C-alpha cells in the first residue's frame, strides 16, 4: 500500500507571514497518524490544505497517489473530514443532515437511509428526532459531525479533536470504530491535544511547530529519540530528560521537541515566575 497522504515542500503564506514552511508529510495507507503541535502551530491550516479547503502557496499535495489540485472533486469523495467548527446545518435534524451528506457523497437513497439509521443508532442519536442540530449539546454535535464524516466510507479520514466533549462511553465505541476502520485500510489523520489518546490510538506521529514539521515517524522511533537530537536540559525539567529514551511517554517526547526554543532556551515561563504564585 502506497502513501495515502504525501506533501512536498508544502508552504502557505498569509501576506508576508509564512504560516506553513516546506512541510513534507508522508502518511502510509492504513496508518493511524497523530498530528501534534502546540496551539498556533498551524495544524488546522495544514488540514485545510490537505482537504482542499485552502490552497497552498507552493508545494504539492498527493492524496491516495493523486494530485489534490487537479482531481479535487474525485479525491474529496474519498476523504472524510470533520470541518472547522463542525460546519453543521443547524436548522436540520440529525437524520436530515446525515441523509443530505450521504446524497452529496453520491450514495444512493437506500444506502444513505440504511447508513443514516445505523450511524444514528451507533452514535446514540436515534432518539433525538424532534431536535434540530442547533439545539444539540456540543458532544452530540461532535458525534453527528463524526457520523457525517464517515457515512460515505472514506479512505482517508481527517479528525480534529474528535473526542472533545464526547462522553466516555461514546468515546470508547468511537475509538473502536476508528481502529476497525484502519484495519480495513482506512488512513486516519488525527489531531488532538490529549496526548494519551494519540499514544493509545496512533501508530505514527508527526509533530509541527511554528509551521515546520519538526519530527515524523513511528511512535517507537519517536520514543527512542531517533528522530530528533535531545535538546539541552531545561531548568526545572530534569525529570523529563533523565529517563531512558525508550521508556518515555509521548507527552515527554512532545514537550522535549516543542517545549524548547530552537536556540535551546526555554520557551514557556516557569510557574514560579507568576507573581501571584510565588
Amino acid at each position, binding site marked *: 500500500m502506497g502513501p495515502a497522504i504525501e506533501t512536498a515542500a508544502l508552504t502557505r503564506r*498569509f501576506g508576508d*507571514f509564512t*504560516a506553513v514552511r516546506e512541510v513534507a508529510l508522508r502518511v502510509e495507507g492504513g496508518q493511524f497518524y497523530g498530528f501534534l503541535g502546540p*496551539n*498556533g*502551530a*498551524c495544524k*488546522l491550516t495544514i488540514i*485545510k*490544505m490537505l*482537504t*482542499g*479547503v*485552502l*490552497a497552498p502557496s507552493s508545494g504539492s499535495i498527493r492524496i491516495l497517489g493523486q494530485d489534490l489540485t487537479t482531481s*479535487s*472533486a*474525485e*479525491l*474529496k*469523495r*474519498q476523504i472524510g*473530514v470533520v*470541518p472547522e467548527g463542525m*460546519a453543521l*446545518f443547524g*436548522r*436540520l*435534524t440529525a437524520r*436530515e443532515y446525515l441523509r*443530505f*451528506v450521504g*446524497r*452529496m*457523497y*453520491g450514495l*444512493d437513497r437506500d444506502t444513505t437511509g440504511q447508513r443514516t439509521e445505523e*450511524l444514528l*443508532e*451507533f452514535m446514540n442519536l436515534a432518539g433525538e428526532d424532534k431536535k*434540530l442540530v*442547533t*439545539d444539540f449539546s456540543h458532544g452530540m*454535535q461532535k458525534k453527528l459531525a463524526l457520523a457525517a464524516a*464517515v457515512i460515505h*466510507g472514506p*479512505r482517508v479520514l481527517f479528525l480534529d479533536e474528535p473526542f472533545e466533549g464526547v462522553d466516555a462511553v461514546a468515546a470508547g465505541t468511537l475509538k473502536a*470504530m476508528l481502529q476497525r*476502520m484502519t484495519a*480495513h*485500510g*482506512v488512513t486516519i489523520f488525527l489531531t488532538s491535544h490529549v496526548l494519551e489518546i494519540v499514544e493509545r490510538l496512533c501508530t505514527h506521529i508527526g509533530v509541527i511547530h*511554528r*509551521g515546520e514539521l519538526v519530527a515524523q515517524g513511528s511512535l517507537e522511533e519517536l520514543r527512542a529519540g531517533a528522530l530528533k537530537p535531545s535538546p539541552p536540559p531545561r531548568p526545572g525539567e530534569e525529570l523529563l530528560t533523565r529517563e531512558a529514551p525508550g521508556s518515555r511517554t509521548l507527552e515527554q517526547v512532545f514537550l522535549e521537541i516543542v517545549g524548547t526554543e530552537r536556540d535551546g532556551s526555554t520557551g514557556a*515561563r516557569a510557574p514560579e*515566575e*507568576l*507573581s*501571584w*504564585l510565588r
Partner: protein
Amino acid sequence: MVEIETEPHRRTIPASAQLGAVAWLRWRMFVNSLRSRQAGGRKVGGLILAIVLRLILWPVFALWVIGPVFGAGYVAWSAIDGHKPLWLLALLAGICFLWQFIAINGSNIAASMPTFEPSSLLRFPVPFGRYVLLRSVLGLLTPSTVVGSLALLASAVGIGIAEPRLALMALLALGLYALMNIYLARMIGIWLERLLAGRRTREIFGGLLAIAIVSFQFLQLGRPKHTHESWIIDATMRSAQAMRWLPPGFAADAILGRGGLLAQFGNLLLLGAWAAVFLAGFTYRLHKQYLGEHLSDGVNNSPATARTQHRSVAEPARKRVGSIAAAERPSVPPGVLPAMLRKEWLTMRGNTGQLIGLVTPLIFVWIMSRGLFGHHPAYMLPGAVGYAILTPMAAVYNIFGPEGPGIQLYLLAPVRMRDVLLAKNIASTALLSAEAALAWLITVKASTTPIPAATQLGTLLWLVFVLAINLALGTLRSIQSPRKFMPGQTRQVRSAPTSRTSALLVLAVVTASLMLQIPVTRLSRNLHQPWLGVWIFGGLAIAGLAGYVVLLSNVDTLVQRNRDVLEKELCGV
C-alpha cells in the same frame, strides 16, 4: 457494531443526486425554520406581540414588492402607448440599478435569516461546473431577484398590453435582461466579498452604503425648480446615447425593434454577451474559491494567533498583579463598573461599522430640518432627536448579543449583573446622548426661527423619559430574548443586532413617545402654557427613571431566571 464499508468510488456522482440533495436541504431548512425553538416556553403575551407586529410588518413587505412591480408595468405601458421610447430605457436602467443596489444590501438581510453559506458546499465532492450551477440557482429567491424579475415580468405585460405584437420579443428580451441582472448581481456580490474580506474595510463599506441609502431617498430634492420631472429621469434621457451600448439599451432596442429583425436579434445577442461577461466574472471568482482561496479574515486568525503567540512567549511579563496571599478576595470585586465601561469603550472603538452607522441618521436630520420640519420648530426638535436615536437604540434591546459565548464570564464571575448591565447602559446612553446632541445642534442651526427655551427643555426631559423607558424595556428584552450576533460580519453569521420583534418594539416605543409630543404641544398652545410640556415630560422622565431603577435592582434575579435562555441563545451553534 456497525461496520463502515469503504466505497469503490468509480462511478461519478449523478448531478441529479447532488442538485436534488441541495434542493431538499433548502426545503428542509425552510420547513424547520417555521418550527419555533421557544414554542414551548414562550409566554402568551410575547406570542401575541409577535403576531401583532408581524401583521403590521407583512403588508409593508408586500407593498415593497407590489409597488415596484405595478410601477414598472405602468411605466412600460406608458412608454409604448405614449410613444416615449426613452422612458423604456430609463425604466430598464432604473430596474437594473435598484436590482443591484438591493442585492448588495440584501446580503445583510440574508445574513439575518436562518440560511447557510453556499461555499460550505465546497467540502463535498462537487465538480466545478455543478458548483457554478448550484451557486447560480441558490439565492434566486432573494428580495432583489424576486422584485426585479417580477418588475421585468410586469414590464413585459405592460408592453404586451400597449402593443401586443411586441409581447413575445419583450418577454424574450426581458428574460435575458433578468438573467444578465442575476449574473451582474452575483458578480458584484462575489467580488465585493473578495474586496471586503477585511473586517475594517467591510465595516467602512457598510457605513458608506447606509449613508448612500439615506441620501438616495433625497436625490429628488436636488431637482431644479423650473422643471416638474425628476432629474434622475432627466439624466437618464441625456445619457441615453451612451446607454445604447449597455444592457438596458440593447434590451430596449430589441423590444422596440429598431433596425429590423436582424438588428433585433443582434441586440439580443449583445445582451446575451453582457450576461456572459458577468457570468465569466462570477465564474472566475468561484473557481478561485473552488481551488481553496484564502478569503476571509477568519482564516487569518490561526496564523495571526501564532504570530502573537510567538511574540508573547519571548516577551517577559512586566507587570506584577499581586499575590493571592497578599490580596484578600472580596465576595464582589470592586471596579467592575470601570472595567466594564473600559471594555464597552474598546468594543465600541473597534466597531467602525457602528460608528459610521451613527452618521446616517444625522444626514437624514440635516435633510429633514431643511425640508419638511424646517418651519415647525415645536415638532422639529423632538422629531429630529427621536429619529437620530432610533437606529442606535435598537442595540439596547439585545445588549448581550455581541458578547456571544462571552456571557458565560458574567454568569461565572463573582459580579453583580446589575453592575454589568449598568455599565452597558451607561455606554449606550453616552452614545445615544452624543447622537441626540449632534441632532440637536443640527436642528438648532438649521431652524429658520429660534426654538423656544420651553420647547428645548421639554424635549430634553422627553429624551430622558424615552431613554429611561427604552433602557428598561431593552434590558428586559436583552435578558428574555437574547440573540447572538457578530458586528461587521455580512455572511455566515446572523448580523442583525436585534430580532425583528425587538426592532419593531423599539420603533413602536419611540414612535409612540414621539406621538405624545403632538397632544402635549397642542394642549400647551391652547392653554397658553408654554411650560406645560416641561412639567408633563418632567413627570414622565421621573417615572421612567424610577421604572428603570426598579428593574435594575431586580436584574440579578431576572438573569438567574433566564440563565438557560441566555446560555442557549448566545453560546449555541
